[in-house]
């Protein structure tokens, strides 16, 4: 590695890691939006991945390459518990249940002593390397791109555009939606473990309502035409507060406004197709 790159990565390591991790989170929102569902559970899944991986590291001292895959277990179990019943119903149920999940987990982290309470868990070794984060991000983008061009991707697009028509074509709605939610839980769990092991501390408020909505703003800013869109959205929204001084106070206001504007005014936004159909 050339020396200047080494220096740069060392100086901006936190920011570089945040770019990769937020990219993974944006993808975890993308897979669910790609089947026309809305899950606000990404931050909660990330928190489950973070807390479970930190406990595995601190209490059992497992190597990080074993911790990383195990960090997906808890998010996947919660995704199953919530996804199986709600994905048979209309989309509002998944959205409600996932927002509720985030709120309840925050309360649990705050109140359970061995999860650190309000102080969180600290002294986490910095075992997440840039190559792991960006390697996973690259693999995820390629995998989602390949899936998008396969029969599965066409089925997902059909579901997004018209559920009834897709069902008539013999597409098993619930299975695709659940698959997307589980993929989303895996990506968010990995992002949580990587994030926890690149900062020395995790706390209950990092996985609450604000990050949940922020992840949605990544995807809506980038658009969900391709997997790259959400990642670019995540990078813009991660870099902006670093570039613009004094912006960080209003960062969340800005993220919220992006969602409002994207839904109200972006005709090529993800819901455009369905809107036109209903208007016709």
């Amino acid at each position, binding site marked *: 590695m050339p020396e200047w790159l080494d220096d740069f990565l060392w100086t901006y390591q936190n920011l570089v890691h945040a770019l990769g991790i937020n990219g993974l989170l944006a993808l975890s929102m993308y897979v669910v939006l790609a089947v*026309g*569902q*809305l899950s*606000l559970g990404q931050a909660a899944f990330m928190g489950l991945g973070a807390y479970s991986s930190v406990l595995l590291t601190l209490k059992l001292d497992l190597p990080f390459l074993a911790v990383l895959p195990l960090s997906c277990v808890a998010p996947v179990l919660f995704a199953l*518990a*919530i996804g*199986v*019943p*709600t994905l*048979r*119903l*209309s*989309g*509002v*149920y998944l*959205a*409600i*249940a996932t*927002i*509720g*999940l985030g*709120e*309840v987990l925050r*309360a*649990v982290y*705050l*109140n*359970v002593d061995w999860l650190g309470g309000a102080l969180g868990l600290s002294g986490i070794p910095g075992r997440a390397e840039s190559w792991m984060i960006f390697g996973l991000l690259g693999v995820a983008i390629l995998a989602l791109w390949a899936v998008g061009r396969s029969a599965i991707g066409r089925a997902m697009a059909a579901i997004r555009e018209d559920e009834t028509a897709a069902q008539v074509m013999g597409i098993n709605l619930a299975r695709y939606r659940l698959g997307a939610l589980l993929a989303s839980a895996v990506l968010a769990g990995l992002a949580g473990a990587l994030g926890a092991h690149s900062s020395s501390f995790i706390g209950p408020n990092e996985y609450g*309502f*604000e990050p949940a*909505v*922020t992840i*949605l*703003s990544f995807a*809506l800013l980038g658009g969900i035409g391709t997997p790259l869109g959400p990642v670019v959205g995540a990078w813009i929204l991660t870099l902006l507060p670093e570039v613009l001084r004094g912006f960080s*106070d*209003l*960062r*969340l*206001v*800005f*993220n*919220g*406004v*992006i*969602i*409002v504007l*994207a*839904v*109200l005014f972006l005709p090529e936004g993800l*819901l455009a197709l*369905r*809107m036109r159909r*209903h*208007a016709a």
Partner: protein
Amino acid sequence: MLAQQLINGVLLGASYALFALGFTLMFGVLRVINLTYGFYFSAGAFAALFLTRDAGLGIWAALPLAAVTAGLIAVALDWLLLAPLRRKRAPELASLMVTLGGVLALYSAATAILGPDIRRLPPGLVDGTVFELAGLRVATPQLFILVASFVLVGALVWLLNFTRLGLAIRAMAENPDAAGLMGIDTGRTAALVSFVAGCLAGAGGVLIGLNFNAIHPYMGESMMLRGFVVVIVGGLGDIRGALIAGLALGVVEVLTAGYVDSGLKEAVAFAILVAVLWTRPSGLFGRPALRRA
């Protein structure tokens, strides 16, 4: 001990029911999961704080004024965020998303302006006398909350069932297009529904603020979890279900706090939500005739 817990639970549940009523009303009539709803709750509490602390009003004057303030905010947000989507007949997830973005912007703007600290209502706002009857203790603020909740719920039931506006609202819940063809001004009715729901949320904010005496911008957000549990358990859009589920949730929370662990009351509430989704997704009192999402 148990009887005392039950009383406390019902008193807490009354304010949960009150809070969830407006949320479920909005869904029933406008078919939107309006997540800005939690913000009306915070707005009502803050309005009451300013009215009592800075304007020196008593609680009986501050409560309706705060409720109306929250109601007006609700109308403005509905006009700004949801009316355009209604005109386009956007899918329900679009309206859910827009309110999600809106509420994040509102909470964080409110936190930036007002600060994140917890405020308290001026002391002595409600006489703190504690009544004792057969060993059961009820404090005056709790009685106030119970009476206010009953009055507001009664007013809502009367409005929906015995007025022309209520008839229009029920017609719109049944079928907005047909209601429009019958000469109902659906835009105006939607605004009025938002106003009523906002008033209920704002009043809930004042009453919960009185009960726990802790007012901060995000208080509505933590309340939304209760709102979700109540409307799912009671059935989305079901007013009667929300009333029963709200009271039951209050009792369950108090019993969990009393006999298990107060740190687990949210977890128990959420477990009930998930259990209902698995077994009876249309709510415990679900009636198939009700139009659902």
